[in-house]
């Protein structure tokens, strides 16, 4: 890869800005990246193969570990796919609870993504700590509901595992009260900060044509200005009943992706408030057979995770385990454009671009 004019630099697997065991082999000419080769697989746990040996319910914890920063969203996508193939209809209360938790997870994940992006741009972790403050509160809510903070394993086929405790609602309401102010605080702190703008504006520009062609999804796609959100386009969990907007970026640079995430936090708060209003009484889970044996069929079910289109492609053969389960991992596919974006840019710009695409290595490698 390295030619006479270039030298080789290994960014990762241990590097502060790769956000995990992710490695990019770079041919550099001075500070400019001439060529790069992405090397993944350090965290490969063969999730798809393992899931062929376990029952549908036993596979739920795997989905936690795929995207460990958005466990709830991954649980949700998987459970919805299995419910679809097995014709299980969750109770209304469970659906609304799922929306609440998925949106909370989206806020937590976006806080993490934006915080680390600012750290990649060189801030000495102050914005990261601020954003972790909100994430901590959300994780506290998860903890009081299901006992776990990171790998929640909360959704079940046919509902959710537990009813949230009573104090959950009070804490959630106070959090929802302060979150929009916090977002405004970040907007003041970062979105008008000259240095931050100089570092992210016009860096890593993805054109909308490229974004669509490279199968990008989530904030990476919306940052380029393409208004595509599965919650609106292909509503699941009754998202069509909620009133929210889709923020889209202007030119598709790192700054736009950052801002789209910030605005999505506000929209998520709106969704959660509406969900709390319509939260019905009733069961939080339906009874399903211990060993679920759906008819031989196939399903490809997609949800809008924090990082984009999270799809579960499941084939059943009538047995208690999926015959084949494929996870369409948004982080993995969003990396398709990394080579094109980073080639010709300088090293700091490439780091910011990578941070703005927001990868989770557990999901890339699965």
């Amino acid at each position, binding site marked *: 890869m390295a030619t006479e004019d270039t*030298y*080789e*630099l290994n960014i990762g697997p241990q*590097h*502060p*800005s790769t956000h995990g065991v992710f490695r990019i082999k770079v041919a*550099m000419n001075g*500070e400019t990246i001439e060529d790069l080769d992405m090397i993944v697989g350090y965290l490969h746990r063969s999730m798809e193969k393992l899931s062929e040996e376990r029952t549908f319910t036993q596979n739920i914890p795997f989905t936690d570990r795929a995207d460990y920063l958005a466990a709830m969203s991954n649980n949700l996508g998987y459970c919805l796919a299995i419910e679809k193939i097995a014709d299980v209809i969750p109770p209304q209360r469970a659906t609304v609870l799922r929306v609440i938790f998925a949106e909370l997870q989206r806020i937590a994940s976006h806080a993490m993504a934006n915080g680390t992006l*600012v*750290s*990649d*741009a*060189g*801030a*000495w*972790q*102050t914005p990261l*700590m*601020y954003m972790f*403050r909100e994430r901590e509160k959300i994780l506290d809510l998860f903890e009081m509901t299901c006992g776990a903070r990171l790998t929640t394993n909360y959704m079940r086929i046919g509902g959710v595992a537990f009813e949230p405790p009573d104090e959950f609602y009070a804490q959630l309401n106070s959090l929802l009260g302060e979150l929009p102010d916090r977002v405004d605080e970040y907007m003041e*702190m970062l*979105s*008008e*900060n*000259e*240095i*931050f*703008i*100089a*570092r992210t*504006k016009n860096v890593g520009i993805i054109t*909308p*044509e490229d974004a*669509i062609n490279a199968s990008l999804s989530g904030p990476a796609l919306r940052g380029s*200005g*393409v*208004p*595509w*959100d599965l919650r*609106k*386009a292909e509503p699941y969990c009754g998202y069509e009943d909620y009133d929210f*907007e*889709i*923020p*889209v*970026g*202007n030119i598709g640079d790192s*700054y*736009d992706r950052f*801002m*789209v995430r910030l*605005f999505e936090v506000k929209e998520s708060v709106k969704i959660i408030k509406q969900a709390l209003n319509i939260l019905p009484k009733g069961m939080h889970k339906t009874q399903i057979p211990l060993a679920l044996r759906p008819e031989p069929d196939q399903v490809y079910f997609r949800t809008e995770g924090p990082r984009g289109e999270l799809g579960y492609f499941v084939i059943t053969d009538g047995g208690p385990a999926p015959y084949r389960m494929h996870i369409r991992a948004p982080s993995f596919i969003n990396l398709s454009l990394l080579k094109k974006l980073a080639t010709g840019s*300088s*090293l*700091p*710009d490439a*780091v910011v671009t990578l941070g703005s695409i927001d990868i989770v290595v557990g999901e890339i490698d699965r």
Partner: protein
Amino acid sequence: MIKKFFSNTLFIKLSIGFATLIFLFAGYFISKLLFDLSVFSEFIFNFFLERFSYNLAYLASSIIGALGIISFVGLVLLIGSWVERRVIARFQIRVGPNRVGPFGLLQPLADAIKLMQKEVLVPDIADKLLFLIPPVAIFLPAILAWGPIPWGPNMSYLDINVGILYVFAVSSLTVPIIFFAGWSSMNHYALLGSMRTVAMMVSYEIPVSLSLLSVALVTGTLNFNEIVMWQSNNSIWLGLFIPFALFTFFFASTAEINRTPNDIAEAESEIVAGYHIEYSGMKAGLFMAVELGNAVLLGALISSLFLNGWFLFGIENLVPPYIIFITKTVFIYLLLIWLRATFPRFRLDQLMNFAWKTLIPASIIHFFVVAIEVSIISNFSEIPYLIVLFTVINISLVVLLAYLWGKIFHVQQYQPEKIQPRFAASIGGLEAMKEVSSID
């Protein structure tokens, strides 16, 4: 009953007040006693002079003085790292080190002990000799530059006529040392870091020297003591008289000493640790300590050159002047910590562009303006308040130019309302992109 009285909050308040009074009295007497430390240095010199020759007395007193400076710098390194961590922790809604010792004050010591226990790794392909020298050698400029700092009246270790030039020359020695540290590691990251350092320091030495030149032009001397005295004689702070020089010096110095927002030489998110990536244990600790020491040194330089040194509206007659000087130094250091806690980092090319396209031309123009002002002042010395008039003019000019610069070059590109995301009217692909509503 007695127990109850002692556990009473009123009692606690009373005792705290009493202790404060005692402390104030003691502090007053101690400060009277330690008001002028030059008594001590004279005593030491005479002590040796009576017993030995002049040469030996000179040698011994200079060594003792140097030890004084080195111990002060060591103390600053210990306390400074604690201050920095605690203050940044407050910025980041954390507590900071609070376990080792009272308020975590012993944390730097514990860190140092931990670092010393670590294995010293030398890479196989490193140039062993050149690899081992830089962590030690980098202390030289950092300590030497403290020499001409005026702590108070009769309190500078090197009272030389070329004070500013001396500090400038000594601190320029850092460049080759950092370069050798990076080169000898035989690591691409380290080499990148050291090349960045060299490029940045060579560029930013020019604005630093230009700003110091205007200081020398105004005061007519390069001696730190005389600069401080000039400010108190004319009862004006140079930072107010030539605010642009203060800004240039401050910003360019943050680049010289590798502090945020210009810490691109060891940008941890890009090149991990830059030139000291391969150093482990106390060697890495030495680099970090020098970085911190340089930050405090910058505070000392600014407070003596621009903030009137040990003078502070007559308070210098009540408290020991060196306390005032150290307070000003710490103030600048806290400013640096504030910067570090809030700002992201510039990119190398942005920084170089700023130096060569903005800072250097502006400094040269500023230098000419200051020269004209100085010649006017010296030719029309009979007109009163001429300096005050020029101070007002300079400050308003700087504000105006900064405003205009922002208007012309920057803000037009990045108006916040123009770069914020918009809300999509409908869902879809490229077709739906055309009809997104604007945000408001």
